[in-house]
């Protein structure tokens, strides 16, 4: 298929190949050329050989000296009057990072070997390969006295904003402003026991015997509920699919979610599992049933940490309700009956000596710095594809609204509301990539963006992913408008899992990107979750994959967003805001892109990025039969 003049411009440096037969003597125009997007497949299958092919910018306006068939690459033998190529700059630009590790300008889409850094007052320029390189440095830039002053590379002209000017002039910066604060008081629990009443006695949590019957009675659809207390010694226990992992936390006094004081129990998490009356898993697909120690990727933001005690409920719901909306919700609500009773006991604690640790979170606005928003796409297709937004208690049920009922429209929350459990996730399928309730409680991107002094995180937008395409575009346009009104300089878009949610994920990129705002997307992609759609605004992507082979490996939370992904995304967005282009991805998933980028970031910032382990660190199930109960 022939291309338009606009496409030809975009692909100026790509090979020129005829799209259809062309006669001798014609002047080559864009309409004579084939779309370079399809070349990779043709080259792979041996149908096309691009050796010696001229570029599109070279052949446009030139004369064809020989009649050629379709899919014939244009070489200098058949073309007359070639336009001289413009200077190639890609891959040869110099990147400068400063002594304090701020503003590292990296090409994070792929590897770039040439980089420059100023560390400890020494200017280092390393050029792996290249020619015709001009380096111009103002003489003062290399002096130590100036090394702490940040300058924005000339390339950022396109996105120059008043705030960028302010970055150049530290005196013009306005002071940081703390909007609100949140205090987390940690109470250490070392043992969980059953007893006559639910209470916390020093470091022992007692759960009332017989509470199960009340949980069952509280929900019409729940027919049975069993509580298992899983200690680290019992990790090798069979469990039904893990539907959710939740922190046990409550607000102190009259504090509202996202502000004031939150009390949280350390060393213990709630875990929801269940089946229907016929033994069919709730959230039937992509199940993580099996031995707990082989199915949990420990210490992921959404997963339990190794060493924690699980209060695991096994809920039985009415037959056939496992795939209907009220089913999973009932299982969650019945479990929350227990959590709520623990919350009441936690609220009643008066002995401050039991507080093992105090954590302070401040929502700081940094006027003058680049303003950023995080858009988090959550599932809203129905049944287990749902989330409860803004409960009264952290990760509670009461007071929350399901985002499906809200029509999946975008909802703005403060970063501290996210960290205070404003999302009670009914967590859909795909155990490796789903974001559990606990994930939001420890959301790495929110935390990193909040602490990054170079940017001004203005808030978080949650947007649901509806089932029908028309609704997807409806909500996506609202996201675009909302972001436009925020006047941000950059945006992150995250999504969990893969499937039709990538359609709105792409649309969010378009809606924000078309407003001239740089966007960085985070999703599990790799092999199995490869994006189903794309558009020209989806140039900056961070893959959350950690699994060895790039697939949904059925290990809980393995492929979810971790600190290492947040750091890569932050660097990528800063680059995008500075006008740096991110290199195109390779045709097939290549895990080396990530490792090279991580290495580059570590080199420039001087801080190593620690990578989390993947499923290979878990026990393998070779002698499963012998262990089988």
């Amino acid at each position, binding site marked *: 298929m022939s291309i338009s003049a606009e496409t030809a411009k975009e692909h100026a440096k790509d090979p020129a190949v005829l799209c259809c037969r062309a006669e001798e003597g014609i002047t080559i125009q864009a309409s004579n050329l084939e779309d370079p997007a399809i070349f990779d497949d043709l080259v792979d299958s041996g149908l096309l050989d691009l050796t010696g092919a001229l570029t599109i910018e070279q052949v446009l306006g030139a004369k064809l000296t020989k009649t050629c068939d379709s899919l014939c690459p244009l070489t200098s033998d058949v073309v007359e009057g070639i336009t001289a190529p413009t200077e190639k700059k890609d891959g040869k630009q110099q990147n400068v990072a400063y002594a304090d590790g701020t503003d590292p300008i990296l090409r994070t889409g792929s590897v770039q070997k040439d980089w420059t850094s100023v560390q400890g007052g020494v200017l280092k320029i390393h050029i792996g390969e290249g020619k015709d390189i001009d380096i111009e440095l103002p003489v003062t830039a290399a002096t130590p006295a100036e090394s702490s002053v940040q300058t924005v590379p000339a390339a950022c002209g396109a996105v120059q904003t008043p705030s960028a000017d302010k970055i150049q002039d530290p005196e013009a910066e306005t002071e940081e402003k703390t909007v609100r604060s949140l205090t987390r008081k940690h109470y250490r629990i070392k043992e969980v026991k059953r007893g006559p009443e639910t209470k916390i006695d020093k470091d022992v949590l007692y759960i009332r015997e017989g509470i199960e019957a009340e949980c069952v009675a509280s929900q019409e659809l729940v027919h049975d509920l069993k509580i298992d207390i899983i200690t680290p010694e019992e990790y090798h226990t*069979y469990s039904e699919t893990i539907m959710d992992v939740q922190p046990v936390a409550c607000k102190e006094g009259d504090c509202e979610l996202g502000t004031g004081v939150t009390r949280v129990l350390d060393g213990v998490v709630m875990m929801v599992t269940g089946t229907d009356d016929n033994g069919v898993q709730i959230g039937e697909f992509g199940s993580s049933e099996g031995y707990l120690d082989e199915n949990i990727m420990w210490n992921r933001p959404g997963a339990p940490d190794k060493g924690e005690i699980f209060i695991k409920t096994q809920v039985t719901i009415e037959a056939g309700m496992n795939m209907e*909306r009220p089913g999973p919700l009932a299982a969650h609500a019945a479990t929350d009956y227990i959590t709520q009773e623990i919350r009441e006991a936690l609220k009643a604690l008066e002995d401050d000596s039991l507080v093992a640790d105090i954590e302070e979170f401040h929502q700081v606005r940094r006027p003058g710095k680049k303003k950023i928003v995080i858009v988090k796409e959550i599932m809203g297709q129905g049944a287990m594809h749902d989330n409860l937004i803004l409960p009264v208690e952290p990760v509670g049920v009461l007071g929350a609204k399901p985002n499906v009922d809200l029509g999946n429209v975008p909802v703005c929350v403060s970063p501290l509301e996210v960290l205070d459990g404003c999302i009670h996730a009914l967590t859909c399928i795909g155990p490796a990539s789903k974001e559990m309730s606990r994930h939001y409680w420890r959301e790495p991107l929110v935390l990193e963006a909040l602490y990054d002094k170079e940017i001004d995180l203005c808030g978080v937008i949650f947007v649901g992913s509806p089932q029908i395409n028309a609704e997807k575009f409806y909500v996506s346009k609202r996201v675009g408008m909302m972001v436009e009104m925020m006047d941000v300089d950059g945006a992150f878009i995250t999504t969990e899992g893969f499937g039709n949610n990538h359609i709105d994920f792409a649309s969010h990129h378009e809606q924000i990107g078309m407003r001239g705002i740089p966007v960085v997307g985070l999703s599990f992609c790799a092999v199995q979750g490869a994006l189903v759609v794309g558009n020209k605004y989806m140039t900056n992507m961070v893959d959350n994959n950690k699994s060895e082979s790039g697939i949904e490996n059925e290990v809980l939370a393995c492929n979810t967003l971790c600190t290492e992904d947040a750091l890569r995304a932050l660097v990528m967005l800063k680059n995008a805001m500075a006008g740096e282009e991110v290199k195109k991805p390779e045709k097939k998933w290549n895990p080396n892109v990530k490792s090279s980028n991580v290495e580059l970031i570590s080199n420039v910032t001087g801080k190593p990025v620690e990578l989390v382990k993947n499923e290979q660190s878990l026990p393998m199930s070779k002698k499963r039969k012998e262990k089988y109960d």
Partner: protein
Amino acid sequence: MTDRKELQYGDKMIRMEGVIVEIHEGCVGIDLKGRLGFLKIPMRMLITEYPLKVGQEVAWNMSFVEQLGPKANEKYVSNLDTYIRHRKEMEEKNEEGGRQR
């Protein structure tokens, strides 16, 4: 875990058609035309342009299913055994409950 084996027939893409026969809030059931099987997929794996109705025809590209190796994965065997056992226990329990009622 099975070592990743390259598919031998992975590029033999065939257009498959089917009919939506079950609609739940979290998933749909699809009969493959020509009695070639049944597919149950979660909602997010279905791309929906119109409101869903039983009887709507759907299509997708797929290839043949190939074995990855001769070994049975003990993990899945064990899970399956447990699953069958649990289902049997629950059936018995349901029957008992029915008799008592």
